């Protein structure tokens, strides 16, 4: 559970049990629905075969491919209203001949109510392609495009979640709200779907730990990162913010907190030199304070405060200070050293040097102090032993 959402009193366990019970009740209509063996979404009867868990094979690369669909899970998922062939275009012949990879920009024959146009994820994908993770320009492709995350790298067909909240238990809230809806919207199922569609978006779906796991799954790989001129996430793991996350402090900042604050979207994360980036100098005060968000972290943030360094110094600082020879012969020509020279101001280089000296000083001081202490204590112990032996003779 995402920690920042856990704004609740001490009776947490009781609350959880209640929620679980009520959620089970919420799920009941769906259970009842599929008990007959028929499912609402599967008008094409794909599940006649695909509801069997063993349906699958090993593919040519030796990867286990399972063609099973759990009908309950699917019906409760964000795509639960769609027909299989809405996404799996062309899979309507038996045996299946025309098998294509699913394209998330496919128009899925639903009307998007705000524009009345056919719905698709095209606009999301376009936005994403222009973000730091996207590969927008076919004429000027990014190097190592295979490193970039695709839709399904981050997304699975997630299960819609009811609202957990400050107003009361999830089910009580659903009951009260839905009772106001179903007067006009007479199809219960439709109203429930709509309600879940909204509540699903009312909180973060991933916990801090999950967010960090997802982002670090790439950003931890220093080899991969340096290919793109980036420091690895080790620079975050050397900070106070990370320690808060590590020790599971409530409301601690994960990657999303700063890189996607209020007013920004995960699909449009930009590099820091881009003025549209949340961590661009222009936007830093807003990002640190996150005014208007559920959680404003540093409400009194000033330019000076927000202008400071957030991640620790990493390979880039080292490249600039120690020079390329400490790292690799030709490294000075690489993207990483190019970026390093751009990113490290005189002042930052100075700071890094001071920090290095302080670190070195302690690296020497502490072992010496402790070493001498141990030595002293040992000598003292030996002396006492000798004196005792002397006295007893």
């Amino acid at each position, binding site marked *: 559970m995402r920690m920042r959402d856990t704004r609740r009193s001490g009776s947490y366990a009781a609350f959880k049990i209640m929620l679980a019970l009520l*959620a089970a009740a919420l799920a009941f209509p769906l259970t009842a629905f599929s008990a007959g063996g028929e499912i609402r979404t599967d008008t094409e009867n794909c599940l006649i*075969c695909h509801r069997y868990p063993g349906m699958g094979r090993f593919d040519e690369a030796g990867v286990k491919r399972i063609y099973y669909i759990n009908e309950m899970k699917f019906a409760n998922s964000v795509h639960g209203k769609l027909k299989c062939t809405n996404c799996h275009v062309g899979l309507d012949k038996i045996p299946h001949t025309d098998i294509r990879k699913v394209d998330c920009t496919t128009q899925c024959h639903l009307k998007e109510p705000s524009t009345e146009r056919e719905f698709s994820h095209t606009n999301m994908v376009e936005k994403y392609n222009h973000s730091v993770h996207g590969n927008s320009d076919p004429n000027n492709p990014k190097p190592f495009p295979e490193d970039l995350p695709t839709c399904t790298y981050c997304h699975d067909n997630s299960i819609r979640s009811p609202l957990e909240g400050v107003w009361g238990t999830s089910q009580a809230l659903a009951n009260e709200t839905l009772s106001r809806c179903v007067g006009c919207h007479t199809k219960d199922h439709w109203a429930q779907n709509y309600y879940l569609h909204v509540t699903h978006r009312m909180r973060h779906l991933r916990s801090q730990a999950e967010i960090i796991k997802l982002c670090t799954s790439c950003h931890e790989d220093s080899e991969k990162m340096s290919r793109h001129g980036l420091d690895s996430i080790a620079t975050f793991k050397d900070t106070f913010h990370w320690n808060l996350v590590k020790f599971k402090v409530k409301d601690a900042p994960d990657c999303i907190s700063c890189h996607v604050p209020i007013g920004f979207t995960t699909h449009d994360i930009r590099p820091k030199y881009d003025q549209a980036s949340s961590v661009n100098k222009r936007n830093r005060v807003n990002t640190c304070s996150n005014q208007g968000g559920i959680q404003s972290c540093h409400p009194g943030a000033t330019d000076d405060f927000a202008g400071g360094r957030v991640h620790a110094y990493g390979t880039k600082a080292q490249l600039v200070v120690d020079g390329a020879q400490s790292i690799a012969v030709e490294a000075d020509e690489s993207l990483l050293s190019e970026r390093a020279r751009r990113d490290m101001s005189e002042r930052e280089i100075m700071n890094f040097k001071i920090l290095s000296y302080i670190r070195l000083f302690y690296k020497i001081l502490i072992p010496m102090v402790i070493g001498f202490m141990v030595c002293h204590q040992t000598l003292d112990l030996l002396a006492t032993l000798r004196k005792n032996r002397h006295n007893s003779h």
Partner: protein
Amino acid sequence: MLLGLTVVWTVMIWNLTFAHLYKGDSHEVQTAKDPGREQPKPVEGKAAFQKQILDSEKTVKLYLGYQVLEQKQLLGHFHIVDIQLKPDTRNYCISCHGDIPHDKFKDLRAFGNMHASFIACQTCHIRLEGDQATHIFKWYDRATGQIVPSPVKDGALPGTYNAKIIPFERVDGALQRIDSQARIDFAAEYRKQEQSLSEVQKSKAKKIIHQQVSKQPYMCESCHVQQGSLLPFEELGYSKQRIDAFVGTEVIGMIKNYTQFYLPHILEPGIGSHEPEKKVQ
């Protein structure tokens, strides 16, 4: 002596305090070597095994607000499948062939594997004839191996049972399940000693293991027929409505689509020289 002690202490303290920092630093410097040039290396050896075989299933956590569900997710699978089947501990065919054994025939392999999760291999691959044929089939529990009452209750989702159908044979007049303890032990013993056997011995053992395995397994129509099906569906607990569904025109029509271009292959287990790929269950 004292000096030695001091040195040991100092080294120990160093290791406990700052050594990791130092190591961390130098490690990072190394990995930054010649960035921008290095191509991602293909996974090799042990790493590849780990990646392809052991990591192909992962667990995902679903944060439903009221509870955290931890579910088995298949790598690269967009849908949350949450397969709850327990591993089959009884079936010895699986110990060599894996629980997704069908591979060769494109149109049928997925169906073969689909049935293999609730029908024991022997049901299709062994033809009991004459005296041996008992026409008795029962369900056994995947986890315990024991014969259990039919798991097919009205409303239970098809194929998601933690049990499988196994045939019974008649040996010297007595009823006995076909996966007898003796056969299980033989296969287990073979696997244990495989390394030390000669090719001739191996081939002989494999022949014994596959002795009953028919060259021609039962095909789809042996079961999916209105009259005279191999399986006694009612005894196995299927409702009339279910039976009508899977011997009905929709299923049979589809089976025709899949099998019309299919010429039965004569399987010759235990004779050829190629080994099936061993698969992790």
